[in-house]
């Protein structure tokens, strides 16, 4: 391959109590790719995201971002390195408006001079962040809800809000954990459109998703986990028919969906 991969995992393992959630997981994500991680419930996908984004620290293995080892760095430092994510279990700021949620994503781009903020000198940042937030809300189709308290948004909207918020950090690498959960096929189509646009901006996307139509349509490559171990990796057309994947994960329904894509 050509350049340094934007994300490189090597021998990642973690256990909770006696339960091995991930063992020896390795993969590389190239810059500009849409890379999907799929696998049965409890396979370790979210755990993998938690490790990559620094929420958990792996018991062994290394994480490299664009060639730099970052294993165990706290999430806020990783964010500064251009990594952002959304959450499977919603983590929106429920008491803030939708626009403010996205503005928080601008944190690293804003001044952090507390004294200046106390003195009311944060106005410039506020205006810039607000403008950017409105753009992003428009991107995900929530422009009309800018001043709605985020806690009052329906589930699907809140999931999209998380994407906008993550985008506000201007990431190079974006991890999306089940962005289409709770969306009907039409809405999933809209999410797909949003992801494509994100990719078009040059942002590398790592996607966890159970909607096979979406995954098969959009992914450049797919990595399959099962019981914390790698089951397969490859292009959608290979994964779709991979016997082990079909057996452990896709089943009839998944195969049908995947075939439809």
């Amino acid at each position, binding site marked *: 391959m050509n350049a340094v991969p934007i994300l490189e995992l090597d021998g990642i393992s973690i256990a909770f109590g006696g339960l091995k959630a991930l063992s020896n997981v390795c993969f590389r994500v190239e810059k500009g790719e849409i890379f999907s991680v799929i696998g049965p419930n409890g396979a370790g996908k979210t755990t993998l995201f938690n490790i990559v984004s620094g929420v958990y620290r792996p018991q062994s293995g290394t994480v490299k971002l664009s060639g730099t080892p970052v294993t165990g760095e706290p999430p806020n430092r990783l964010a500064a390195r251009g990594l952002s994510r959304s959450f499977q*279990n919603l983590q929106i700021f429920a008491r803030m408006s939708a626009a403010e949620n996205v503005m928080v994503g601008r944190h690293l781009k804003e001044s952090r001079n507390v004294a200046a903020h106390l003195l009311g000198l944060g106005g410039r940042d506020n205006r810039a962040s607000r403008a950017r937030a409105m753009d992003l809300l428009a991107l995900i189709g929530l422009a009309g809800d800018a001043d709605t308290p985020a806690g009052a948004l329906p589930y699907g909207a809140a999931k999209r809000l998380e994407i906008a918020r993550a985008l506000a950090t201007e990431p190079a690498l974006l991890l999306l954990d089940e962005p289409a959960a709770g969306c009907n096929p*039409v*809405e999933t189509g809209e999410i797909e459109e949003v992801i494509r646009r994100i990719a078009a901006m040059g942002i590398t996307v790592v996607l966890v998703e*159970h909607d*096979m139509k979406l995954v098969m349509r959009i992914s450049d490559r797919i990595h399959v986990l099962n019981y914390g171990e790698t089951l397969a990796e490859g292009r959608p057309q290979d994964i779709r028919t991979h016997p082990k994947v079909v057996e452990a994960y896709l089943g009839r329904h998944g195969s049908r969906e995947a075939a439809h894509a």
Partner: protein
Amino acid sequence: MPETLLEVDGLVSAYGRVKALKGVSVTVRAGEIVSLVGGNGAGKTTLLRAISGVQPVIGGSVRFLGEDVTRLVPHARVARGIAQVPEGRQIFAPLSIEDNLRLGAYRRRDGAIAADMDAVYELFPVLKARRATPAGGLSGGQQQMLAMGRALMSRPKLLLLDEPSMGLAPILVDQIFEIIASLKQRGVTVFLVEQNAAAALSIADRGYVIETGKIAHEGEAASLLADDRVRAAYLGI
């Protein structure tokens, strides 16, 4: 014509000043599977919450087995046979998986509880393997299984399902729909909210389509599946 189990009439409900349900009427007959489809924020969850009694209503009525239950507290409705798998799973995170299931049968006093628990474990073997651990550690999909299992433990007459397939691996989606279909054989009536509209309607007898707090279409499931407007708006075909 089987008897009417659930009759929702002109239900109105609001969050603050925002009306989420603007006069919704729905009927579910005993032994049926009825699906409710609709977009984000259409009011599906609100309707199920109102039926269970955890959402205040400001107009309309809910009748269950002929009895007006509109003013009944939630636990009294559970006692009458209404169970719900809520949106977002809502498991008892610090409690063990086994305790979660046991609490599903909170209102029951019969001797078949242990047997039912085994049945749930059979449906979802992962749960059995981890039954003594706190439910909060489960993955999203595993929690969804637990929520389903917990609702089954109450042996409901009417099971309200709010997006039961959300976050489940495809292979389990098959399974969940099979389970729902099989509930019918066991005499459980199901009112199903699903984003996976095609799958939901394909196992349902009848269906409703809700749009911004109002029922927009209703009819036989097959005819809804064939309806062009529904196909375009919700099935993405």
